[in-house]
């Protein structure tokens, strides 16, 4: 049994380990080990195309995370107040938003945007001579779509574990509803909101499929990696891949730690 587990883990992680390993290759070819070097990291970070893609990716991921954290938290708080079939329906919709494959979100957002642009662009052009088109903000919109669900799920779990009498205690001690929200509800939800923010950042930062459909002329880091692979895998791409991987890992671990620490103060 144990040997199988080890084999499975090797199967899962060996390719990833190879990429990380070969990103430190001194040689010119991805799979031809010539000795240890961080030269390709230096090359990657001085490549203006990569840096531009990285900036775009960070901008998209940060905006997505911020918007998802705010809207997702409001969604969770709103759902606390509905009951019955309405709540069941919304719950189902939240799970659906997470389960829908990226490619479906990508295609459907693309189609939705295109038809929307066709509708409003003639009008916008005649009025202010501007035109809406695909770009970073379209990626943000598509990413926010499913990351709202991620944040909402985390915040709802936290809300359900929260002792309702804390809210009553705050009201009993003369705090207005807004004061109670600011001084009790928000601090107690903070770990879940922050974890949701980090998860949304990660999911957005590493997403390729959705971005590929709606990014328009903008290039995100995953899109850059994909397009360079057609010219052969270089250690530079390995380096970029390792950076993306490590960023995602770090954020996921931090999010997990925040959630665990939050558990202690939940009641």
């Amino acid at each position, binding site marked *: 049994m144990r040997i199988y587990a080890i084999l499975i883990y090797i199967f899962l992680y060996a390719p990833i380990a190879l990429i990380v390993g070969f990103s430190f290759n001194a040689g010119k070819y991805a799979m031809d080990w010539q000795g240890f070097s961080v030269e390709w990291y230096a090359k990657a970070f001085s490549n203006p195309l990569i840096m531009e893609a990285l900036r775009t990716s960070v901008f998209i991921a940060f905006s997505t995370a911020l918007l998802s954290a705010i809207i997702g938290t409001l969604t969770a708080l709103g759902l606390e107040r509905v009951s019955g079939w309405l709540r069941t329906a919304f719950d189902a919709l939240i799970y659906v938003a997470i389960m829908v494959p990226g490619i479906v979100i990508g295609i459907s957002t693309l189609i939705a945007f295109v038809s929307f642009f066709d509708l409003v662009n003639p009008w916008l052009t005649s009025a202010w001579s501007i035109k809406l088109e695909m770009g970073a903000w379209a990626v943000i919109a598509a990413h926010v779509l499913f990351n709202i669900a991620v944040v909402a799920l985390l915040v709802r779990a936290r809300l359900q574990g929260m*002792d309702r*009498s*804390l809210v*009553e*205690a*705050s*009201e*009993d*001690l*003369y*705090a*207005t*509803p807004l*004061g*109670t929200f600011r*001084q*009790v509800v928000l*601090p*107690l939800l903070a770990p879940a909101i922050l974890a949701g923010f980090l998860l949304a950042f990660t999911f957005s930062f590493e997403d390729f499929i959705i971005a590929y459909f709606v990014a328009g002329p903008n290039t995100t880091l995953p899109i850059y990696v994909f397009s360079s692979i057609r010219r052969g895998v270089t250690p530079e791409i390995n380096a970029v891949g390792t950076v993306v991987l490590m960023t995602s890992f770090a954020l996921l671990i931090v999010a997990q730690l925040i959630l665990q620490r939050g558990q*202690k*103060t*939940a*009641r």
Partner: protein
Amino acid sequence: MRCSGLMAERKLIVPPDDVASMIDTAAGLMELQETIFPGGLVAQDQNVIEFRQVTKRFGTVAAVADNNLSVKAGEFLSILGPSGCGKTTSLRMMAGFEQPTSGEVFIRGQNVTGVPAYRRPVNMVFQHYALFPHLSVADNVSYGLRQRTPRPSASDISKAVDEALAMVRLDGYGKRRSYELSGGQLQRVALARALINRPAVLLLDEPLAALDRKLRRDMQIELQNLQRDVGITFLLVTHDQEEALSMSDRVCVMREGKIVQTGSPRELYDRPVNRYVADFVGKTNFFKGPSTDETLSVRPEMIEIAASVARLPEGLAARVPVKVLNRIFLGEHTEYRVASEALGEFMVMAPRKSEREAGVYDIGDMIAAGWRAESERILPNT
């Protein structure tokens, strides 16, 4: 002195500047009350809380039905009843967490029906304390003061907190977090957090239920002393009759949303209005009454036992031969379970003193039991 509005009255409870200097000791607290309410706004016979025909329905179920409860200023009142009798709902309507379906709630003579919890001059100690886990003990205790406008100065707040913590014997615990405290300590923080606001009434929702037996006993005494010292009206909700009887000035027994009887613990024990109260308050024996609607109740400590009917004292209304079924030694007295052919099984509490004179009876012994006419209570079955 009457205040025109609730908010104005709230502000009067603790004038921020006076807090630190006044709340010196428990005596200081009473002095504070005197200063704030000269001539006694809280006169002894005034009702601090009054329900006028209050009904609360949840769906079709009436949790509280046509209730006219009143809480007198300065007293320690307990609402006693089994779960689901409407006692907690009553408390929540006083705090403002629930609003009555019909009827009116008055606090210090002001109609507060429809007024939300945060604008009512009462404070509550929650069953599981509900201390804010993200705040230190000191920040928990000062929470109420920090909601006031204008906000008291930081030094006034910290002095008031120190004194409130001293009052519940938790000096120096201000910096701790709630998860570092024991059950009894949490309880006292919750008390300090409520009392620092000088509420018109302190509402206590089964505050001792979560404590172990020994601690519960200590806290009962502590609560009682605290109430006498600070002179604040306490309203306790409990299903534990011993707790209600031992701590309160008055007890209000509820059943199915209605008040069955209100009176001093002694009144409830000695003169219960019906079989329900007699059964709920203290231990008692029920025998067949003179009619089908009535029951005869005799408290077990009022029953005398002797080795034979002839040895029973003179002047007893009932004297029957009985068989000892069981005996439990309880220290200050012994509880016998006995059976007679005419009356069935019943319980007798024999004080230690009588045992020294008459001896201890064994299981299976044939003895005699009897009681005086004045020990009998004929109670309606309602």
